[in-house]
């Protein structure tokens, strides 16, 4: 799978920021298996970029191609297909089901695709230190715990790319390292690419490409 951006410019972004950017209004290709970190200060359109790639928003000019197909004309069915098979995501705002348990939040993603997961949910939860939270309602967990739930959920499907939008903002260095290691293992098993967008460089992420937004 290849993701291409051809002179993409968000409709809302100021001209100066577009001119300064190494991504907006440029032609970029990211291939499956690559590790890309996008460093973006606040207000530069980092979350918007992730949402554009995931198909949540379409308020931009230019083209985003996935496997050389322009995603601008895709319908809900087409995006559903790619989100369940090829594209996974960790949202900056997490987007969990607050009134359901941690386990239910993770399993609802797992049920979507008949994917044979070698590492169990319980093992992942144990590694990230939230094994004892599986039966608790998501809204009762701290923000850092919720981030770890979102991470585990994103690893419950096959993917060619994992999109991450500030996934570790509320994790300390130790947990960040553990989480990144888990993500790296799962991505490597799938030969998948990772696109991580954050305010600053994540040292635990072994990025092959560094881009400034």
């Amino acid at each position, binding site marked *: 799978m290849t993701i291409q951006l051809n002179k993409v410019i968000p409709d809302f972004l100021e001209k100066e920021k577009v001119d300064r950017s190494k991504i907006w209004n440029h032609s970029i290709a990211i291939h499956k298996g690559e590790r890309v970190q996008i460093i973006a200060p606040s207000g530069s359109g980092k979350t918007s970029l992730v949402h554009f790639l995931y198909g949540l928003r379409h308020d931009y000019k230019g083209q985003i191609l996935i496997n050389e197909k322009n995603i601008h004309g895709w319908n*809900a*069915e087409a995006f*559903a297909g790619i*989100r369940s098979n090829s594209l996974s995501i960790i949202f900056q705002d997490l987007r969990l089901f607050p009134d359901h348990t941690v386990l239910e939040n993770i399993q609802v993603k797992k049920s979507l695709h*008949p994917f*044979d*997961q070698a590492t169990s949910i319980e093992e992942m939860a144990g590694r990230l230190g939230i094994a004892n939270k599986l039966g608790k309602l998501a809204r009762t967990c701290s923000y850092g715990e919720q981030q770890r739930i979102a991470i585990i959920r994103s690893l419950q499907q096959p993917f060619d790319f994992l999109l991450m939008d500030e996934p570790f903002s509320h994790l300390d260095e130790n947990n960040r390292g553990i989480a990144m290691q888990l993500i790296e293992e799962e991505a490597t098993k799938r030969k998948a690419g990772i696109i991580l967008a954050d305010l600053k460089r994540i040292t635990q992420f072994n990025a092959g490409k560094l881009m400034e937004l």
Partner: protein
Amino acid sequence: MSVQTPGKISFKTIAPFLNIGGNNTSRFFSYAGLGIGVMLLLCSVQMYININQLLKDKNPRKNGYDFISVTKTVTNQNMGSDNRFTLADINELKAQPFIEDAAPLNANQFRAKASAGNIIPFSTDLFLESVKNDFIDTVPASFSWKPGQADVPIIFSADFLEMYNVFAPAQDLPQLSESSIGAINIMLECYSPTGIQTFRGHIVAVSDRINSVLVPESFLLWANKMYGNADYVPAARVYVKTVDANNTSLLNFLQQKNYHVNKDKTKFGRVKQVLQTVVSGLGGFAILVILLAMMLFSFYLQLMIARSKDNLQLLLTLGYSPSWFSKTVAKKWIPAYTMIILAALVAASLLQFAFQHVSLNGKDELPSFLHSSVFLLAGVLWLLCIAVNYRLIKKLLYRL
């Protein structure tokens, strides 16, 4: 490291995330409304069929047709004029879609007198008529005549025979049966300006349908020309062949043309018309009830989806297919619709059974069970409910 069983996606997976419960009152009201509406509609269709069945003409029918006698209504205004049927009148009758055929009854244009000799001292002037053989209920092979033939076969009306048998004893005349009347030699005298010709008449059949003394058409046409000097004479009576004598279109047409028909054939016509109108009205009401029930159910669905909007949007964001959602959620209500339609069918069946046994005392004029078209209608309604439900859910989900 343990190997997980691959996830299996079903309604159970997403059920906890949908706010299906609550507002059960409107849901059950819509089920009840739908059940009542469907039952009323099925019953009204069955009653329509029952009415057609019960009010069909019971008189002997030939090859599945009814035959009715039609004359022009004589009023004070028109009684001085010629109220016979012209060729144009007869062609107009034949052209109607509800009339298979029409044939005039030709009458004698000369004086005819019949007597039965010494055995039955009875003589009378009489009228003779003829009509196409296809319109007569019993036509034996002997009912034919060629010029030169001295014997004239006659088909006699059963009503006339009955009348004769009523007054015969008072006149010291023997009563006659249908089989014995054929043995009587009838002297048939035809009067013309030049003299009287006598034929030998024999009654070869008795007719339940036509109140007349019928002779072969070939004889009467020849005799009218010979003794009455008449080539063509308009008929005062026309027989009409139709599939159903109580057909409302037929009755309306005859009424509009001011034609008179023999009432016993059409007595059920107006009754049938009224009953069918009532039953059709009931059917229309039933459709309204069904529509209201479906509308109430759609409100329930809209409320359910509105309450679950956040969760539904997130599920779609995570990769759940709107199409799969629509089908899966819509399928959940198939058992409910199936039960409702089946219950309505059972109720309608019980009503038909009760009607047949209680009102008709179990007579076989009507079947005890529903007509096949009622079952077909139930099937169509079931499919419609499922299709409408699916489309509504799909529309609501795609809007999210």
